[in-house]
């Protein structure tokens, strides 16, 4: 152990930074080294004198002396606070600038929400409104086919009526039996076969023109389920009733034909809108007579009476059971 190291330990010892082991080691060295012992004695004396330095006190209370200054500081702080309080008043025009930013954010959020809701509403309404158009190709095939069937049937009814009315003169002798009706229907269907292809051709020729007018298309398929299905029914009913009216006058015949023609474009539209419909239409034409066979045959001008009779029969049959007389 060298003396410089011991002297360093002396300092650490005086500063209470030396552990016991090193202290004993240092003391052993000091006991054998007079120079270090003298140095240690001087250092201890110095440290003792330093520690014994008089604890001087201020001759007056420093806090009391600075109290005016502290009060001045407090007043300055109050003025600062006041100025700060005033500052917001002056800053009020500025804070609204900040607030609108927040409002902008909130507004954008609210607007987006409102816009999203509005868009959802509009989209929902649009979907609800345009569902028929949208699903026209997908789900409307069968309804259109049915419509076309019904239209075809109605058309064929009218055609049958007209044909029967036209051919009724030659076939007037025929009875109002269903078979005769079928035969007449077959004749009528043949007539119609002759007629409808031409009309379909015409309609197909008209197709581009009509396709170019989406409004008509839009009108036709817009409410296919209720109106277009009912409309043919109505027309069919009308055509059913037409013979009753047409039997009274030939003008009604033409009107019936007109109505049948008016119906046909719808069919043409339907067929033009979907060519697959054309196939069921053809099938419907072939199937039409069977369907028409159920309907009461309306062969001739004399059929007015027969129809009345049949209607009466139907009516009587319906009335027969309650009264029991008829």
């Amino acid at each position, binding site marked *: 152990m060298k003396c410089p190291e011991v002297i360093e330990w002396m300092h650490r010892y005086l500063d209470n*930074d030396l552990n016991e082991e090193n202290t004993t080691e240092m003391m052993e060295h000091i006991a054998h080294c007079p120079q270090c012992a003298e140095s240690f004695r001087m250092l201890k004396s110095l440290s003792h004198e330093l520690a014994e330095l008089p604890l001087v006190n201020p001759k007056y209370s420093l806090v009391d002396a600075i109290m005016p200054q502290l009060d001045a500081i407090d007043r300055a702080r109050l003025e600062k606070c006041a100025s700060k309080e005033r500052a917001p008043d002056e800053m009020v025009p500025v804070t609204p600038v900040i607030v609108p930013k927040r409002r902008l954010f909130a507004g954008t959020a609210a607007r987006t929400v409102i816009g999203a809701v509005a868009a959802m509403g509009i989209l929902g309404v649009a979907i609800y409104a345009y569902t028929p158009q949208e699903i026209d190709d997908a789900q409307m095939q069968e309804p259109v086919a049915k419509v076309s069937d019904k239209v075809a049937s109605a058309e064929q009814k009218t055609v049958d009526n007209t044909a029967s009315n036209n051919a009724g003169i030659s076939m007037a002798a025929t009875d109002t039996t269903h078979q005769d009706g079928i035969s007449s229907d077959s004749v009528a269907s043949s007539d119609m076969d002759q007629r409808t292809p031409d009309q379909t051709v015409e309609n197909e020729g008209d197709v581009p023109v009509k396709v170019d007018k989406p409004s008509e298309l839009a009108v036709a398929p817009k409410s296919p389920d209720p109106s277009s299905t009912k409309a043919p029914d109505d027309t069919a009913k009308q055509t059913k009733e037409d013979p009753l009216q047409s039997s009274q006058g030939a003008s009604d015949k033409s009107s019936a034909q007109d109505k049948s023609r008016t119906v046909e474009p719808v069919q043409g539209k339907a067929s033009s809108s979907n060519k697959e419909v054309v196939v069921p239409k053809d099938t419907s034409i072939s199937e039409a007579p069977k369907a028409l066979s159920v309907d009461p045959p309306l062969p001739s001008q004399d059929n007015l009476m027969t129809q009345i009779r049949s209607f009466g029969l139907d009516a009587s049959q319906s009335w027969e059971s309650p009264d029991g007389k008829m």
Partner: protein
Amino acid sequence: MVELGLIRAAQSGDRDALITLLRDIEQHVYRTAYYILNNEQDALDAAQESLIRIYTRIDSYEEKAKFKTWVQRIVTNICIDKFRRNKPTVSMDEHEFVFPDKQDVEQLVLSSYMAEDIQEAINQLPEHHRTVIVLRYIQDFSYNEIADCLNLPLNTVKSYLFRARQQLQSMLQEYQKGGVSG
């Protein structure tokens, strides 16, 4: 030294607590200033300035540091600034003024003579050595507390203390020789 509750009350805006706190520490503040500046009037000024600074900056004190080291840091910073500004004139005045006093006291009481010698020797130390000695012996700080107070590494504090003592020892030996010879 100072209750933590008093410090918290002072920080929370309790002016009476803050004043009480300043009264508790004013002696410690003054002693440090006195032994660093080695001049009563400068010490009074520096101590008052330190107390005012503590009064205004009590909010900046964080409890992770010891309050006494925080206070002594303020005092030593102010004293070192003052010491650097006043050093040329004050030291000259003090030297000429104290020297005859020292001789008179030296002849009367040995202990006071030693104290005067030590104070004079401390006054001759470089400012950092002096500050370290003052904190170590006047405030009874440990190495770590001195290091925290002066923002110095621990080994630097140790080396400052060693050198300060050696310088003091050599100066006091010269004074003793001079005193004996004189």
